[in-house]
């Protein structure tokens, strides 16, 4: 019984880690730039396809991951400078529309290049085998997800809480106008943050391909989930998105084990109730509270 509970816990956490890696960029960009970015899932999808393309041609897995982060990162920086920047001054509707347009474009392009069928990332052999973790054997892949997620969360934590870049970021999230007034190059900060967020999304899409399968509808299918993480955690709240990602990962896993029929309702139902109860999210940043 205990080992079963631990299995669910590990499954939930590993899934939550993927959600976190992909969504953390979104939470920062939505908090910082106040842009409803529905296209974030497209960057994760591109990262996944890049990793899949290279690993299927025999490239080293970790080298492929590097590309999976670099390509969406560069695309993200370009998109921020050209397409997203005019959006900051416009309303939510324009933002929703334009980013949905980006999703359509990305989906069509991926279908055209890679076909409409699911696409696989070749994981190294040692990740595809189960390993002994004391009380039972468990897929090494899931443990790898938890490890990578924990490392990324720790690094982000140190950067955001401890570095000058992090201090600037937090300042700009709390009050962009003031940040500009004291002489920060907010434009550069925006581009950099957006690019890093997209790179992380690409990385998450690549390593998470085992739990969220790659297909052209990926961008549209999962973006709701990523947005849920952001909104539930509170826009711009780094800690909040971590908590929300873990919670959603666990809820979804619990649902799949115990109420296979009702799992999707459970996830959306919880989100629905939570948003009605706390429209600002679980842990909103101070300025939004």
């Amino acid at each position, binding site marked *: 019984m205990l080992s079963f509970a631990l299995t669910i816990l590990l499954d939930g956490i590993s899934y939550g880690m993927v959600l976190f890696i992909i969504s953390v960029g979104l939470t920062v960009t939505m908090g910082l730039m106040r842009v409803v970015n529905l296209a974030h899932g497209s960057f994760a999808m591109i990262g996944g396809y890049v990793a899949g393309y290279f690993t299927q041609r025999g490239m080293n897995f970790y080298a492929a991951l590097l590309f999976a982060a670099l390509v969406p990162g560069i695309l993200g920086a370009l998109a921020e400078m050209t397409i997203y920047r005019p*959006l900051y001054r416009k309303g939510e509707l*324009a933002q*929703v*529309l334009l980013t949905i*347009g*980006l999703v359509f474009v990305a989906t069509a392009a991926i*279908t055209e290049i890679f076909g409409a069928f699911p696409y696989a990332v070749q994981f190294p052999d040692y990740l595809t085998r189960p390993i002994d973790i004391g009380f039972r054997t468990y897929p090494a892949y899931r443990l790898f997800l938890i490890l990578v997620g924990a490392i990324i969360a720790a690094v982000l934590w140190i950067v955001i809480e401890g570095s000058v870049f992090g201090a600037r970021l937090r300042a700009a999230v709390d009050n962009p106008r003031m940040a500009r007034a004291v002489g920060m190059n907010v434009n550069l900060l925006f581009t950099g943050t957006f690019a890093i967020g997209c790179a992380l999304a690409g990385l998450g899409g690549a390593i998470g391909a085992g739990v969220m399968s790659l297909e052209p509808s990926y961008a549209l299918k999962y973006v709701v989930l990523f*947005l849920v993480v952001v909104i539930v955690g509170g826009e711009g709240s780094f800690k909040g998105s971590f908590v929300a990602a873990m919670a959603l990962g666990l809820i979804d896993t619990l649902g799949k084990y115990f109420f296979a029929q009702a799992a999707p309702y459970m996830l959306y139902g919880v989100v629905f109730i939570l*948003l009605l109860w706390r*429209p600002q999210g679980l842990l909103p940043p101070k300025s939004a509270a």
Partner: protein
Amino acid sequence: MMTTSTPAHTPPATGLGNLSLGTPLSLVGHALPWAIAIAFFFVAEGYLSLGTQIMIWILFALSLDLALGYAGIVTLGHAAFFGLGAYAAGIFSIHVSSDPLLGHLFAIGTAALFGLVTGAMILHTTGVTFLMLTLAIVSVMFEFGNQARWLTGGDDGLQGIKIDPIFGIFEFNLFGQTAYVYTGVVLFLWFVIAWRVVHSPFGRSLDGIRQNARRMRAIGTPVWWRLLAIYTLSGAMAGSAGALSAHSTRFVGLSVLSLLTSGIVTVMLILGGTRRLYGAFIGAAIYYLVQDSTAKISPYFWEFIVGGMLIATVLFLEGGLMDLGRVFRNLVDRVRKPKADAP
């Protein structure tokens, strides 16, 4: 096919869509889309089912214009109403009665009730939270439609829809004449309702709410009730479009409840122009023409084009195609007196 008419009835820059019926020019503008619809019936006999589809989507986009365009309710969950209407009409015809009008009314009622209930739950929120709630609703609906195979047929779609002739006389035939006329009449009725609503004091108050809800509340407008009313009406209209779709094709696919459906109807509306009512007409027609011609090049190319059109519309043509005339005039003005434009 209707773009040529745009400059003729482009309203002034106030964006209130206040075409008066008075001037001869605007009368021509008003008659044009309906004249085209009637002419289409006689000229394009082989394409009537396409025409029916276009009119159904016009109605759907029109319903979105009420909520999103006029009242400023930014939703991505409108597919829930369309899908609910379609399934309600289909299921009603299989299990209860195959009378098309009864089924249609049932679908409208179901969608309206759904709009009332969900609207009452979520309309006090705004912005991204509201958007997420609408996404959650439409996602739950999709999952339900997928899993309740006994009721909806799951991802095989709802099959076996039977419908009697309208009034016992006009049979839904293979060539789709009945469906075309029926859809056209329903669209016209809804258009008249929408027109009246938009130009009523109630419609004006929606305009105010969109521009500044707080101020409207301060002058005593019951904002929440107004939003709920238009959300319900808009839901009923979308449900009606869904019912027409179910009746005319005698099939309901699960995709009617997908996010893509919400996306497509929004594209149509934005492309045509919001707060114009006729924007829905142009948007839906252009969308279908583009989809039809680009899908021949590659089955996925149309999605690429639609996405591109959406991006371009937001970046360069905020008022949609209905705004082309004004954009053009501005351009001419700017060329004529470039200095006046400097900030």
